[in-house]
């Protein structure tokens, strides 16, 4: 797939994610996203500030049941290394030595999890925590290439899954953090009017680097895959008027 087509396909899934209104839709989206990344599995696992858990994803239900029954959470190096941290990990970076951990890994591979994995930890507000994982069966070279090519989209996908899951939390106050500030609105407005980045920076009397960060921040708040989609989305949502 050409880069541009791929970006468009990714954005279609993000649009659907933005529209999702219940956990069943989130489950369906985890399957769509797995197909998009062309990996064996994709899993999103959420733990609220009060310890409630929710998951969606494509693992074999027999594996999920076994994981719970064996209480693998205690020894799973992925969970151990991601909890309270915020950098994404390739499973190869983790310590798989020790008999219990090796047995766990064999069991996982037998249940079709795959020998490769990449996990993005997400820190939400007030103690909320989530991990987003893709896993696959392939050689190291192929996996390394896959991660290099898709790391950015995997990180974005992880955070958008989490933003959506947070919306489903009961008694949740509206999220002020996703509001665009006036400066971000200005930047998106001029871009929507067809100004180049240099022209927008000039008009707003800021450097192009600063503009880049304002756009990146607005893109994140809008749940968009890239700048073009962020502009389209702010128009759709009536956040900017041109």
């Amino acid at each position, binding site marked *: 797939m050409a880069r541009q087509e791929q970006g468009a396909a990714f954005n279609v899934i993000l649009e659907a994610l933005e529209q999702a209104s219940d956990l069943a839709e989130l489950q369906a989206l985890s399957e769509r996203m797995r197909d998009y990344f062309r990996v064996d599995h994709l899993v999103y696992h959420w733990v609220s500030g009060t310890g409630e858990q929710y998951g969606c994803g494509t693992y074999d239900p027999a594996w999920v049941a076994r994981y719970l029954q064996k209480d693998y959470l205690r020894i799973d190096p992925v969970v151990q290394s991601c909890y*309270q*941290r*915020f*950098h*994404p*990990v*390739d499973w*190869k*970076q*983790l*310590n*798989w030595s020790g008999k219990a951990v090796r047995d766990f*890994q064999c069991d996982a*591979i037998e249940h079709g999890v795959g*020998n*490769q994995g990449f996990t993005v930890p*997400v*820190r*939400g*507000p007030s103690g909320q925590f989530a991990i987003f994982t893709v896993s696959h069966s392939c*050689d*190291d070279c192929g996996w*390394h290439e896959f*991660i290099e090519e898709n*790391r*950015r989209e995997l*990180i*974005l996908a*992880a*955070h958008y899954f989490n933003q959506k899951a947070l919306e489903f939390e009961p008694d949740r106050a509206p999220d002020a*953090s996703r509001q665009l*500030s*006036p*400066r*971000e609105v200005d930047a998106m407005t001029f871009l929507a009017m067809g100004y180049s980045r240099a022209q927008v920076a000039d008009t707003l009397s*800021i*450097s192009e*680097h*600063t503009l*880049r*960060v*304002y756009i*990146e*921040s607005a*893109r*994140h*708040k809008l749940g968009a895959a890239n700048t073009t989609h962020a502009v389209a989305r702010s128009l759709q949502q009536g956040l900017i008027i041109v």
Partner: protein
Amino acid sequence: MIRYLYANDLHRHDRLARSMFRDRARQFSERLKWPVDVDPHGEERDEYDALNPLYVIWERPDGHHGGSMRFLPTVGRTMTGEHFLHLTDGVHVQSPLIWECTRFCLSEKAEPRVAAALMLAGSELMRGHGVEHFLGVFDAPMERVYRAIGASPDVLGSAGKGRAKTSVGLWAYTPDARAKLIARSGLSEELMRLWYVRSFGRVDGAKSAVA
């Protein structure tokens, strides 16, 4: 050498951690006169140290702190988002691709190359974790340090004058800046990679035992 340590792993490096918080007290409280909290042991900590940040620390051969900086993801609580919005035109910068870098501190005994080594370690973080920018808060003296090592940030906004000037700036990963830092720090790519791998594990090059 460089160590990458989350706050909840600092207890395993007691001497290093304590000397870091003491050097922070010397820099921010004594020298710069920032209104920061220093405890009875002479250690400076703030509310962001309680959020399990990632520290990048230069450890001296005797196990003491030589310099450090602190990272937090901008999707969570940050100093720039909670205290310095007036320096970013009111924009609360948030993105999983941007991390906040604060409390850049150098020990009084630090050799000149330590600042460059720390910035180089920062570029390892960007390369290794898919981070595209660092957003940082710094003061006038640090601005000179950054300039001297060829790692000047793009300034988003400043307030105050002279030594009391505080700015929010932005660093991006560029091969050019990286080459300069390698020269200034006197460290090799290989050594930086080794320190990174020791903290985060190996990804590329290694043949998996599983496959």
